[in-house]
């Protein structure tokens, strides 16, 4: 089975037609090429070392994303040694009784499951103009899975949080290259103590795979993926937000939208936490040719800690909007599938989707540009031909 990325190639080839073929293109283009990465099925390879894999939108037709289709985002190299028998999780910092857990001990704690839509803060980065540095994610650095494991609060309460404790830091076992700062971040205590914040050991009912953080990861529901530290080995209660590259300047968003391309002062930013309201069209795909008649425009929509209340579809480039039907599968932090039954006549169309959430947020017609390209959430758009 092959995918339909050919349509995208077709589109980019068309865009190039008439211009001189760049030497770069002839050297870089890799039509239909694939790499074998065990356990990772049909994903777009943004980088093989370290591993960054994106889910093609055509896989967004199931409420739960199968693990082999689930995007992978690593900031560094995966741990070279991971052994369930010797793995330890230490809990310390501003606590009365620091302690260490083995995987067997962690597994004995009460298990809780959360269906969560996990999205990389940089999903959609490649769509920002001007372009910004970073992994050039398209639309698919997002997925939904059932995560299971102990509640973080059960572990923290066993340690006894001191009054000074205000933030909870996670450290993973990532192999750190060069002099790169360690991937350490923190979340406020209130979020850490939420009944749905987990030390997850399972994903869709199976033990976490290595690429998803085996043997345990934080799972901070509704928040950017970077909050959910993989290969978790240390939990530390702090009296303030962790100070480090991946809290600042990393993962910060301008307090006020600025002009695209303009620098933003660090003091005019805040940490990125919850996800934005967003939707993606999973079909028809961009560049598709379909027969006239009934065409189901379908996709998925999510809103972090809020609920999706409405998805609208435009088949005329954004002039008129029609209500889509939301799928019945739902959970507090999970996306909703949706479909719009369209009676299509022959012609060329620009189809858009936009979602609105329970906080009254609607996808903005213009994306909020920011220097790191976080939280892109303009309405999704595909161009198709109806024959």
């Amino acid at each position, binding site marked *: 089975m092959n995918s*339909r990325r050919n349509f995208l190639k077709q589109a980019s080839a068309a865009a190039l037609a008439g211009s001189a073929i760049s030497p770069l293109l002839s050297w870089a283009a*890799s039509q*239909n090429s694939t790499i074998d990465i*065990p356990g990772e099925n*049909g994903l777009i390879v943004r980088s093989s*070392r370290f591993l960054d894999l994106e889910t093609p939108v055509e896989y967004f*037709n199931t409420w739960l994303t199968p693990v082999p289709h689930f995007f992978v985002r690593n900031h560094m190299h995966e741990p070279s040694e991971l052994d369930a028998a010797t793995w330890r999780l230490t809990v310390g910092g501003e606590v009365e009784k620091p302690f260490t857990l083995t995987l067997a001990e962690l597994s004995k704690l009460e298990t809780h499951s959360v269906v969560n839509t996990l999205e990389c803060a940089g999903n959609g980065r490649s769509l920002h103009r001007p372009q910004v540095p970073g992994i050039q994610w398209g639309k698919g650095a997002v997925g939904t899975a059932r995560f299971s494991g102990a509640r973080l609060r059960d572990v923290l309460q066993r340690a006894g949080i001191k009054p000074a404790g205000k933030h909870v830091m996670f450290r993973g076992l990532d192999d750190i290259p060069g002099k790169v700062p360690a991937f350490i971040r923190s979340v406020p205590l209130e979020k850490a103590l939420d009944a749905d914040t987990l030390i997850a050991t399972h994903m869709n009912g199976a033990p976490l795979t*290595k690429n998803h953080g085996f043997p345990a990861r934080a799972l901070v529901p509704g928040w950017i993926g970077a909050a959910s530290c993989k290969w978790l080995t240390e939990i530390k209660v702090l009296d303030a937000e962790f100070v480090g590259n991946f809290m600042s300047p990393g993962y910060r968003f301008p307090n006020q939208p600025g002009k695209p391309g303009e620098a933003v002062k660090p003091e005019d930013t805040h940490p990125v936490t919850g996800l934005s309201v967003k939707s993606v069209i999973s079909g028809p795909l961009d560049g598709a040719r379909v027969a006239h008649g009934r065409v189901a425009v379908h996709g998925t929509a999510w809103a972090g800690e809020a609920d999706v209340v409405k998805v609208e579809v435009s088949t005329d480039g954004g002039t008129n909007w029609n209500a889509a039907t939301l799928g019945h599968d739902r959970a507090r932090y999970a996306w909703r599938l949706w479909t719009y039954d369209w009676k299509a006549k022959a012609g060329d169309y620009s189809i858009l989707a936009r979602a609105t959430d329970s906080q009254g947020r609607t996808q903005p017609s213009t994306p909020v540009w920011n220097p790191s390209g976080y939280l892109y959430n303009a309405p999704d758009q595909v161009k198709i031909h109806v024959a």
Partner: protein
Amino acid sequence: MSHKNRSSRWQRPAASGIAVLLPLALVAALSFTAPAQQQAAKMTEDLPPGAMQAKATTACTECHEARIVLQQRLSKATWTKEVDKMIKWGAVVDAADHDALIDYLSTNFSPDQPAYEPPRTSTGTSSGSSSGTSAEKPSGKKTSK
């Protein structure tokens, strides 16, 4: 080169809840012809030819593969910031090569270049791979008990 109508037959993953919402028209709309074959891509890419290729390869790919560079489309000012950040993070760049490296990157990977076309991970059914990469073989298996 023409890729017109070069689409593929694509099997939708088993749908859960939404399945009842999807009319048959969708299935018709998703039917295509002409399967395309998969070809093996290199696990890690190379940086483009040029006087700075070797030095850039040393500086960048010690920590990460070339695709992370290949996919960027940045102005010279932004490339300068990136190079200086990476030097701070351990990239080995002689002071004498600093400006030439920025020129090399900003010439090859400027905003007006076409987007990089990434490969995909194989689907395990048509790649001809004997490693049997599939959904049933989680990569963490060897380390789990």
